[in-house]
């Protein structure tokens, strides 16, 4: 069970990292218009 002493701090750091990732995506405007982004994949003539 000694591994828990490593995993618990690691999980806290991981959560903070994920929050940072979400914040980056949010402030780049990726959640401003969810509908358009979802439908972009159906557009013709757009690469990617």
């Amino acid at each position: 069970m000694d591994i828990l002493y490593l995993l618990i701090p690691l999980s806290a750091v991981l959560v903070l990292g994920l929050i940072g990732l979400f914040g980056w995506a949010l402030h780049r405007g990726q959640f401003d218009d969810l509908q358009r982004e979802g439908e972009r994949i159906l557009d013709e003539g757009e690469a990617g």
Partner: protein
Amino acid sequence: MTLTAVAAAPDDLAVLDDPIEQQGSTRWETAPGGHRIAETSLVLGGMHCAACAGIIEAALAGVPGVERAEVSAAGQRAQVRWDPALTRLSAVVEAIRGAGYEAVPDGAAPARELRQGERRTALWRLFVASFCAMQIMMFATPGYVARGDEMAADLRQLLNWGSWLLSMPVLLFSAGPFFQGAWRSLRQRRMGMDVPVALGIAVSFVASSGATFDPAGVFGHEVYFDSLAMFVSFLLGARFLEMLARHRAAESLESALAALPETAQRLVADGVVETVSLQRLRPGDRVLVPLGASFPADGRLELGATQVDESLLTGESLPVARQVGDEVVGGSVNLGAPVRVRVERVGADTRHGAIVSLMREALTQRPALVRRADAWAGPFLWVVLLLAAVAGAVWSWIDPSRAIGVAVAVLIVTCPCALSLAVPSAMVAAAGALARRGVMLQRLDALEALAGMRRLFIDKTGTLTEDQASWVGTRLIDAAGRSAADVVPPNQVAAAIALARSSSHPLARALADAAPATAATVDWRQVHEVAGQGLEARDGQGRLWRLGSWSWVRPASTWPAPVTELPCVWFGAEGSELILRFDFDERLRADAAEAVAALTDDGVAMTLLSGDQPQRAERLAARLGITDVRAGATPQSKLAAVAEAQAAGQPVGMVGDGVNDAPVLAQADVSLAMGRGAMVARLHADAVIVSNRLGDVVLARRLALRMGQVMRQNLAWAAAYNLACVPLALAGWLPPWAAGLGMACSSLLVVANSLRLARV
């Protein structure tokens, strides 16, 4: 680059290139190369599917000088970056038109950017709080499921440290608005719900931190980090939904606001007409006002005679005649004939501008609405503080080492989670239900005022009545203008209706709309319309008939035009002795009588508040059973009537549509504007009845009453839950897991109860 893109724009778009009109929608930046780049936001029309966004983006990409174009299908908006050296805004709009869509500059762009920022921040706070709450709950679970000494003390300590670390962002960032709100209320010396909320959060955190770092200290060894994080994320979730409802209302209003900039046709010295932005008009300018357009500013008629529709400005229901030298009011509509006007006052000096400034003043004097939750906050806080103090005092006598721990436990279990969700959750659910019915709430608090409303002031023209007049009767008239007979020849009536179809004059439209489009009984030839006079045409036998004003139908008559109470139109053949008179009257909205009766039944006193002439207002009030009538009212006297009722202690509501109603809408405790009404009225009303049904006022009030009931149930439940927990905490029998579970369950119960309102 070619110059073709910078060629002259079509007439109606040229005004887009005027810098004065670009202020609201366009932002200027300086690119690294030193030249200026414009970024304009446009409101799009005609989009019906997501693929349209791609088509418009492609069309914009084809305009030389457009650097980047982003189209949002959901928001029906485009963001375009363009180089003013290579293209113009009118060319950008023309490219969108060429693709088959409509585009107008978005004057509300700054407001929307502000909203977007607000939304991002709220979502960010909510995410941080809920994500941390999830992980804190993970850390808390072992403590709940482990029995006795199953878990090592140092492992428990490590989990508590982890919880403490993840609580920091929740406390310092996510809970920020609650602390700010509490600080604001304390500084203004009034109590709001934020004060007990902030106190609960702060006490939980301090006590749990004490327990984490000094388990043997005064705060005991229980930690409440999971309750704290869950509490903050629940509250933020409710606030986020509340904000979305508010934004939705604002957006629907802004899309109605978007239009091409208003222009005026100004006469330049040598007789040339130029189209200019309204903001460029100056007193002394001469402008041409075409038929059907609105007057750009206050002024005097210089050439031509006409009728004008001033209903939005004065409440006068029928068109009024204006001759050379008469004053015309900016914002009224020219119905009779094209005229030339000399501008006397522009902008804020016009009658329209004066009404708008009166409205601004009324807004600042409006009685403050006390939110029900805030009314509960004060007593609640004092009771909780008192209980905690009593608990601490009692325990310091029994067992001084546990005194602080028990006092803190009391403060934590009474943390008003359900109490602070009780009101916003009911409001959001009710606002959503109303939005689906076509009533957009701009201020959610307005529902509470609507439920408490005792007197409703209602405007006549455009609110109780429809915009268009309706044909109410026909008479046969002799040469002197006296009534000759009540029996009218039906074939002549049919012939007049057939002739009326070829005109766009409002009274002709009303006549044509009254009868179904049957096969034309008369084959009219050489139909000819003289603006401000009427129509003339020849029948199959070549006889000349005229439809229009008295002097038009009876040009040779020595009798003056007969005085009639209602507006009318004459119809007769050249040289005939008898002619027909068609009478018109205002048309009530289909559900007006029903709505007035329902409101009276519900115990709301009704007052008709009209700027129209007294006999017309009184006749209509009698038809609807309204006894209290204030006719001939100016915006000032309307405002005085409402303030008088408010001074008598009656919560007052107002339903209106015109510019002249705007000050009253701002002053009333709760105000509703018709969806077809003037922009200024819609902008400042608490709710806009987009459906234009008066029945929705009744519906909204009944829903508001039900909302009041649900709110009372929620508050009672939350208070009962808190009170039940207090004795347990006082006895020291309430473990943190039970407190957290109870808090979550009572919050969910409150939300589920509120959701009942979403069904209308």
